[in-house]
């Protein structure tokens, strides 16, 4: 595929991203007769679902397009936006196509949403996926393995295929390929950010949340090939920034575009983090369920949702700053996001020790006015170009 073919690919990706009615999921179910189960941020082991013939569908809230009619009646003003838009999607029928929902352990709001789902949608599977904060194989590992076995049983009770180790190995293989492709695109963006605008990469990653992984992999390959051969994209004098804090409620696409237009190249981020939660390959040797468990315990990203036991707080972000050659950090967290906002002062302290410039602002997924952020990010980018001095 050449650069000229990027348009249709991105149009399709954006259409999938904006399709709250989950038309592609309906089509997939009609074609395959399989089950589809939604999941909230940040991470679920999609390999297990895929191995049992279930389509994992990422639900990242309602974004900037959805009008909230009933969702606000479920939440006080001081609670973040993603649960109210998710409830809205449930109540307006957009999620009827899903046979269930998985709510991973990320914060108290999403945790409580799992119970609200049980009360409001009693005929659907509503599964809270508890993940360990103890990372010893024999303690947290055993607990998590049992959680996964229970999840597998729940899927089977829903009508999914029975758990099969070989099928899980195959699913792990395909998702390993998925991680390689996404890592490759992140690397390409690090090296040549003008070729991979984040506003494009983001919609591709969002599209991947509603597609079978094999189809998503094809889209990633096509996108990579197209941007690599597109000679019309030239470097500009932009500041290289790492964006952090947006791992759950996603920023509106307009915000990402605003950051880019304000003079920033986003060279690393934590958007749609499910795709990169496991950092390396998951082993296909031995018991594949143990491999999933081991990968979670030992190879997960250092998210604010995880307890950082022995490592230096902020070290992982400093490593990412160094690896991505970021010249500054944008703390870009949703309003009222406990994990991001409680973490932020600690991370700020860590990066200030290394003279990494930073600035911070908040958003909600349905924001549509970005002038203030544009000015703030633009000033930040200008200051980096004038006085940069990172020594991470």
């Amino acid at each position, binding site marked *: 595929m050449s650069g000229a073919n990027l348009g249709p690919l991105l149009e399709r990706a954006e259409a999938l991203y904006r399709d709250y009615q989950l038309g592609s999921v309906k089509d997939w179910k009609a074609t395959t007769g399989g089950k589809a189960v939604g999941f909230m941020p940040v991470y679920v082991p999609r390999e297990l679902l895929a191995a049992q013939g279930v389509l994992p569908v990422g639900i990242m809230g309602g974004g900037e397009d959805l009008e909230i009619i009933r969702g606000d*009646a*479920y*939440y*006080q003003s*001081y*609670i973040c936006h993603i*649960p109210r838009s998710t409830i809205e999607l449930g109540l307006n029928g957009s999620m009827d196509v899903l046979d269930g929902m998985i709510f991973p*352990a*990320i*914060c*108290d*709001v999403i*945790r*409580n*949403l*799992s*119970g*609200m789902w*049980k*009360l*409001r949608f009693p005929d659907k599977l509503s*599964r*809270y996926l*508890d993940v*360990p*904060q*103890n990372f*010893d194989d*024999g*303690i*947290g590992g*055993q*607990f998590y393995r*049992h*959680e996964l076995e*229970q999840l597998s049983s729940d899927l089977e009770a829903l009508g999914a295929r029975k758990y099969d180790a070989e099928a899980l190995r195959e699913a792990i293989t395909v998702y390993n390929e998925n991680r390689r492709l996404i890592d490759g695109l992140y690397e390409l963006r690090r090296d040549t950010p003008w070729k991979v605008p984040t506003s494009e990469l983001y919609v591709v990653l969002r599209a991947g949340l509603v597609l079978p992984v094999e189809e998503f992999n094809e889209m990633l390959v096509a996108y990579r090939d197209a941007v690599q051969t597109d000679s019309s994209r030239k470097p500009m004098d932009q500041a290289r920034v790492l964006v952090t804090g947006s791992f759950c409620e996603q920023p509106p696409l307009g915000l990402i575009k605003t950051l880019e237009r304000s003079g920033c190249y986003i060279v690393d981020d934590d958007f749609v983090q499910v795709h990169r939660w496991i950092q390396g390959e998951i082993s296909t040797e031995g018991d594949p369920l143990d491999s999933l468990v081991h990968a979670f315990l030992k190879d997960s990203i250092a998210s*604010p949702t995880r*307890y*950082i*036991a022995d490592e230096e*707080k902020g070290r992982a972000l400093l490593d990412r700053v160094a690896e991505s050659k970021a010249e500054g950090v944008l703390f870009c967290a949703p*309003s*009222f*996001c*406990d*994990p991001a*906002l*409680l*973490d*932020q*002062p*600690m991370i*700020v*302290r860590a990066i200030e020790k290394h003279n990494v410039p930073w600035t911070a602002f*908040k958003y909600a997924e349905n924001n549509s006015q970005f002038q203030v952020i544009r000015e703030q990010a633009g000033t930040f980018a200008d200051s980096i170009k004038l006085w940069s001095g990172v020594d991470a």
Partner: protein
Amino acid sequence: MTQPTAMKDRSQLRQKQMIAEHYSRLAAAPDTGDKSAYTFVPGNLTELLRSFDLLPVLPEINALQSAMRGKSRDYISTAEKLGHSEDVCTYVKCDVGMMKSGNVGPTGERLPDPDLLLLSYTGCFTFMKWFEILREEYDCPVAMLHVPYQADGQITDNMRKYVVDQLRDKVIPELERVSGKAYDEDRLKEMLARSAQAEDDLVWVLESAKHRPSPIDAYFGGVYYIGPIFTAFRGTKDAVAYYRELREEVQQRIDAGLGPVTPEGDMGEERFRIVVEGPPNWTSFREFWKMFADEGAVSVSSTYTKVGGVYDMGFRHDPDHPLETMADYCLGCYTNLNLPSRVDMLVRYIEEFNADGLLINSIKSCNSFSAGQLMILREVENRTGKPGGFIESDLVDPRYFSAANIKNRLESYFQMIEQKRSGGTQ
């Protein structure tokens, strides 16, 4: 104007003395060599800590004490100037501000730096971040106990085993290292037996609110003098004596046909019997309580008093299975229950305590409680037919306590109950 002074019962004087002695001992710790562990109220391991002669320090209690002494506004401001967001838990910010301002406790004496941070991560995600923040400030070990959530309304063997494994392999070895003492299971069992003894009396006191008039206020009184002693003193002989004394006093109130003690003295006629969900506001605690008492409203049951354990649902510490019983205790705390379980509990309270309705005090700071409360309100109303009321405030941030607004809402709510009564819907 001088506020009226409430008569204090014997038990309250005992409680005051126990708390004063505890803080004095903490203040003297740098000289005496006593060691302290900072830990949280929900899922606390008080008996285990005390079996190692470690003194518990509870940051939430320090924060609420700071609020009651009018210190929290400045402490929160200090934390926000250090970069802590206005959106997050004010308990955390109050604690950070207090620490940065010299770590002076409620008695005016400096609290010791912790020898251990015992992170019991039960029912509240913020706890985990809170101790990461404290860890940055103190050069001391951290023992982490992750307590899984009761998402399906039950404690499974897998959950229990996970907690027991952590207690045995992580927490106890750390307590041994910090205290320099070996784990003494017999001593722990003795303490757990004393806990169970006090728990019987605590539940008796809580259930006394089924009487008309209720001899206790299970929300304001519940958090002021019935529940708090339990957290830091569970397993001690003092706690057993305190609850026995309290029980006797409550029995005397029942015999005399008296209502609860309030800040203004004995309450007058009991007009409304309310179940309250959510934490109280601490910055205007007395004013808040008075708004209820003035209307003749008494809380006959509350959920905030159950974050330290759901003894009224049948749980008792079992000295014969020390680690398992501590695991079950941690897993059973109110904020570790899923929403359907919380709704069930509230419905049960309304029915068993013959309450007129449910009032939710929704706290800006506390997502663990607040997220989902509007749905809880509707569910409970639908299932009981009793009216629900909803007010908003904060734990320790005085900027979020609007007295006039809350008073208006409360008055409207009580009027609504009266209208329902006169409409024959009772």
